[in-house]
């Protein structure tokens, strides 16, 4: 019965985003959808009034996104945009942006 733990392990991986992470460019591509407003790789134009996202701790970005989603953090537009992405996609985006210098 050595098969069982393997199957269970695979199920867990799938649930935590293993399937999409198989595409090495997925996080990069998803984060690029933010760049129109927040700058290429999250490096917003200084002084233009929009938050830079590069090098920000992943947990901090995810909390901010969760607060937009719940309404805890007031927004003009992000409360509407955040609802268009899955949790898994937001996790990939936050991870990618945290790694940008």
């Amino acid at each position, binding site marked *: 019965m050595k098969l069982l733990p393997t199957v269970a392990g695979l199920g867990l991986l799938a649930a935590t985003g293993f399937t*999409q992470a198989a*595409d*090495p*460019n*997925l996080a*990069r*591509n*998803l984060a*690029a*959808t933010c*760049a*129109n*407003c*927040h*700058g*290429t790789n999250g490096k*917003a*134009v200084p002084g*233009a*009034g*929009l938050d830079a996202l590069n090098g920000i701790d992943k947990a901090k970005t995810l909390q901010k996104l969760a607060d937009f989603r719940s309404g805890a953090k007031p927004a*003009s*537009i992000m409360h*509407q*945009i*955040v*609802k*268009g*992405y899955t949790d898994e*996609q937001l996790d990939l985006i936050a991870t990618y942006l945290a790694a940008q210098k």
Partner: protein
Amino acid sequence: MMLMKRRDFLKAGAAAGALAALYGCAGMGKASGHVVVVGGGYGGATAAKYLRMWSQGGVQVTLVERNPTFVSCPMSNLVVGGTRSMEEITVSYDGLKNTWGVRIIQDDVLAVDPAKRSLRLAKGGELSYDRLVLSPGIEFMWDEIPSLDNAAAQSIILHAWKAGPQTVALRKQLEEMKNGGVYALSIPKAPYRCPPGPYERACLVANYFKQKKPKSKVIILDANEDVVSKKGLFTKAWTDLYKDIVEYRPNSEVKDVDVASKTAILEFDKFKADVLNVVPPHRAGDVATRSGIKLINDRWVDIDWLSMESTSTPGVHVLGDAIFPAPTMPKSGHMANQHGKLAAAAILNLLSGDRPSPTPVLMNTCYSFVDAKNAIHVASVHQYDPATKVVQPVQGAGGVSAARNEIEGKVALGWARNIWADMLT
């Protein structure tokens, strides 16, 4: 003779590839080849930059653009309304050239030969490509407004729906108009470039009249049966801010004009203006329609949403306003930028022998000013749906502003600076 020395590109590509390997980017930058991008607007400029950036210089990119500088359509209504200058909406192509190593050719494309994978330039010469990106924007269907189908008429009755000299000329006509004059703006049936754009223009011209020529009127002749975008917010602005200035007329399709008297000819009616601004119906830009690529309704290019590649013509990717849009997807600069990134990612995969990503995501934001300071937005997110093979709007996401506000006016200007940098810097 503008013959591209493809061997030199390949050599340069190999060198850049070696550089990428040096910096330890295994698995990235392995794509090589030559991509030609036609059109340096929101879609094409973004594709050019991202192809270079994501391939770490491994892919050679040539951008063919007819204009010497980029002039933005978004924000150009602020120039029409007199609160911003042309300089503030103009950006150089130097960043693409110097920072990203994009080869820029200022020229027009006469014809594409997809079988030979080459295209012919107006000033002479041919360019060969491994993959082609067409981001040609729109062409006006002048035959729908027969009396405007000549250059002289088009210099009197303006569209100003491609930013540039027409923007300046429309501003001049408004400045020269007498107090008490009538400005009429005709809107074609959807789909057209920038759904909220005409209503924004009506607001900003009304804002100018309110300050400087308060006896003047803005008449909107809309071919559509109702306001196409941000309806509640625009109609509230017209009522609250421009009650005695703006008049909205639905189901008012302009069929022709009388140029000398600046009269719009509708199906059962005529309307004479002092400044007549006609936005004719449009279709995909000429280079797309002349290349034998499959169109929908004889107007818009049919594309595969995983790659932006033409469904009929392998190796040709089409972006921006020229494509047949997915459900609820606007023809906007923001969306064209997103198309550019989707295409860049797919092209790099294809040039590496991989398939495009099966899960593309696109999002849109359009800001519109209703006066010099207050703006409103519409936003949406679109995810690929394997069942319909189209990017579909995510239900429950996106939406419009609760009310016009100055914060979004500031954000709109910040959006412009960031997206221009994302394309061109």
